[in-house]
C-alpha cells in the first residue's frame, strides 16, 4: 500500500494480491466480466438492452429484501433477476421483436413500469432494514470490499452454468436473433430459446450487480458488447472481443478503485464509456474512409445491382 499505483505492473499486482478481499474481488470480477461480456454481446445483438437493464434493477429489491430478512444478498439478486426474466418473457410480444411494427413500444411500457415498481420496493426494503446508510450505496453502485469466499463460489457456479447453457443454445440462439421467422420454420423453438436467454440474462445481471451495483450493471453488460459490435461484424470474433474488453475493464477498474478513494462503479463505468467512445469513433472513421459506403446514391445502386448479374 505504501508504493501506491505506479508503472511497475509486477509491483502493482503484488500489492493487489496481498489483501485477501482484493483477491476475492478480482476472482469475482473476472467471473462476472466473462459472463457479462458473453451474454451482453448476444443481448446487444438481440436489442434487449432495456430488458437487461430492468433485470438488473429488479435485482435491487431482491438484494435489499434478502438483507432485510438476514439472508445472503446474492440469493436475493439471483432469485429476483431470474423471476423477473420469467415474468418479462411471459409478457406478450417479447419474441416478436423484429416481426412487426406493433408491440415493441407496448412491451417497453410494461417493462418500464415493472422497473419503477422494483426500485420503489427496493427503497422500501432498505427503509425497513434501518441498516447503515452505506448499504444502499453499495447495492446501487457496487463495492469491492467484503466479497466472501462463499460469494465467489456461488458466482463461479452460476457463471459456469450460464456459459454452458449459452454454448448449448449457441446457433439456434443466434439464428432466432437474426432471423426469427426462418428459424421458426426450421423447427427452432424460438419462444423457448427466447425465454432461456432471458433467464441467462437475469443470472448475468444478478451476478454483475454484486460487483458494480444494480444501476451500473450496464458498464459490463452493454459497453464492452456495444464496442465489440462496432469493431467487428463476425459473431465469434465479436463474442471473444466483448469478453476480453469486459475483463480488461474490470481488472483496470478494480485496480484503480483499490488505489484511489473513488468507488469501483465509477471506474468500471468510466472505462466502459471510454472504450465505447473509442469504438464508435473507429467505426465512424472507417465508414467515412469509404471502405463501406453506407448509403449509395440511387443511380450507383442500380448500376451495381445490374453489374452483379
Amino acid at each position: 500500500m505504501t508504493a501506491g499505483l505506479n508503472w511497475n505492473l509486477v509491483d502493482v499486482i503484488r500489492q493487489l494480491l496481498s489483501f485477501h478481499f482484493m483477491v476475492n474481488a478480482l476472482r469475482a470480477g473476472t467471473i462476472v466480466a466473462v459472463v457479462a461480456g458473453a451474454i451482453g454481446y448476444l443481448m446487444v445483438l438481440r436489442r434487449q438492452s432495456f430488458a437487461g437493464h430492468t433485470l438488473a434493477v429488479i435485482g435491487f429489491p431482491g438484494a435489499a429484501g434478502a438483507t432485510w430478512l438476514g439472508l445472503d444478498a446474492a440469493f436475493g439478486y439471483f432469485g429476483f433477476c431470474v423471476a423477473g426474466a420469467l415474468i418479462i418473457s411471459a409478457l406478450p410480444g417479447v419474441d416478436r421483436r423484429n416481426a412487426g411494427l406493433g408491440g415493441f413500444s407496448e412491451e417497453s411500457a410494461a417493462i418500464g413500469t415493472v422497473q419503477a415498481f422494483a426500485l420503489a420496493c427496493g427503497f422500501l426494503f432498505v427503509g425497513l432494514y434501518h441498516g447503515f446508510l452505506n448499504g444502499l450505496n453499495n447495492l446501487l453502485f457496487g463495492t469491492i470490499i467484503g466479497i466472501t469466499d462463499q460469494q465467489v463460489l456461488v458466482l463461479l457456479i452460476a457463471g459456469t452454468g450460464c456459459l454452458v447453457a449459452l454454448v448449448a443454445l449457441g446457433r439456434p440462439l443466434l439464428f432466432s436473433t437474426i432471423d426469427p421467422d426462418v428459424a421458426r420454420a426450421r423447427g427452432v423453438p424460438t419462444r423457448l430459446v427466447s425465454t432461456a436467454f432471458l433467464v441467462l440474462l437475469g443470472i448475468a445481471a444478478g451476478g454483475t450487480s454484486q460487483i458494480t451495483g444494480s444501476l451500473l450493471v450496464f458498464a459490463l453488460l452493454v459497453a464492452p458488447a456495444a464496442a465489440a459490435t462496432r469493431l467487428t461484424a463476425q459473431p465469434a470474433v465479436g463474442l471473444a472481443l466483448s469478453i476480453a474488453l469486459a475483463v480488461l475493464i474490470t481488472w483496470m477498474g478494480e485496480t484503480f478503485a483499490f488505489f484511489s478513494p473513488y468507488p469501483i462503479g465509477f471506474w468500471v463505468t468510466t472505462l466502459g464509456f471510454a472504450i465505447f467512445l473509442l469504438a464508435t469513433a473507429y467505426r465512424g472513421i472507417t465508414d467515412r474512409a469509404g471502405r463501406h459506403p453506407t448509403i449509395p446514391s440511387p443511380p450507383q445502386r442500380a448500376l451495381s445491382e445490374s453489374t452483379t448479374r
Partner: protein
Amino acid sequence: MNRRGSDVATGTAPGPDLAGVIHTAAGDSVAQPSHGEGMGPDREVVWLSGAAARLGGQTIWSDVSLTVRPGQFVAILGPNGVGKSTLLKAILGLVPITAGQARVLGAKPKVRNAAIGYLPQRRAFDPGVRIRGVDIIRLGWDGDRWGVPLPTLPWAHRSRAARQRVREVIALVGAQSYAHRPVGQCSGGEQQRLLIAQALVRRPELLLLDEPLDSLDVTSQASVSALIQSVCRCEGVAVMLVAHDINPILPYLDQVIFLAGHGAVMGPPEQIITAETLTMLYGTPIDVLRDHAGRLVVVGHQDLPFQQLPRPRHEP
C-alpha cells in the same frame, strides 16, 4: 433467360393435359390430374385438397386445392389479406390446416421442413445490424443445430463442407462482392440475394418466397426474378412465390395460383392471366396487354380490399 414454354430442366415438365386443369373446390380427388407415370399426392412437391386454414379463430381460406410439381415455378396471386402468406405458412406447418388434406414433399406439413427454403415477407435489415452476409447464409446451413460448431479435428471436414457450400451459393446468387460486409450496409436487392442464398444453402427441393420483389427498384426486381428463375431451372427446385406485382416474373412462370377466400384457381399463366379471368377474380376492370416483345403486362387496380370481392364462381 426469357424462357417461355417447355424446356423444363428436371424432366418432370407439366404434361400437356395440365394446361386444361383448373383445380376447384368441386370436392373429392379433384386435384388428381390424370398424369401417366403414377403421380400420387406423395410424388408432388405440394398437394392440397380441399384445405382450409384458421388463424386466431378466423377462417383465412377454405376449399383450396392445388398441385405443385418438381421444378415448377409457381406464382401465388390474390388480393391483400386473402391469406397468401398464410398459404406458405400452412405448407410449412406453421399454421394448422383445419380441413381437407395436405402433403408436402410426400409427408405431412412440417415433417420435411429441412428440405424447404423459406424467405418470409419482411422489411429490410436495419442499417445497424452488424452481422455479415456469410454468417446469415451459414445460419441457413446449420443454424437449427444446438451448440456451437467445434473447430476440432473430427468435425473439421463437416465445417469445411459447410464453408464450401456457402461459397457455392454466394457465387450462385452473385453476392461475392458484398457477402463479407455487414448485412445492414447492403442495399435492398443485395439483402434479398443474400437471403435467397440462405434459403438455398441446404439444397432444398422447394423454395417458398413471400414477396421477394417487394420494395426493390425495377432493375433489382428484374435481376432477382431472373435469379430465382435460373435457380429453379438449374437446381431443379420447385418455387412458390407470393407476388403483388406479377409483371417482373410473368415471363418465367409455369403455373399461377390465384387465391381467393373460398378456393383457389390454378393454371398456366396464359389461362389465368387474361382480362376476363382477372376481372372476374378481382371484381374490378383489369387489362392484360402485350408489349412489343409479346410479353404480357397486367394493368389495373389490384389492391381492392378482400371484403369487396365477389365470391369467385366455381365451375366444376
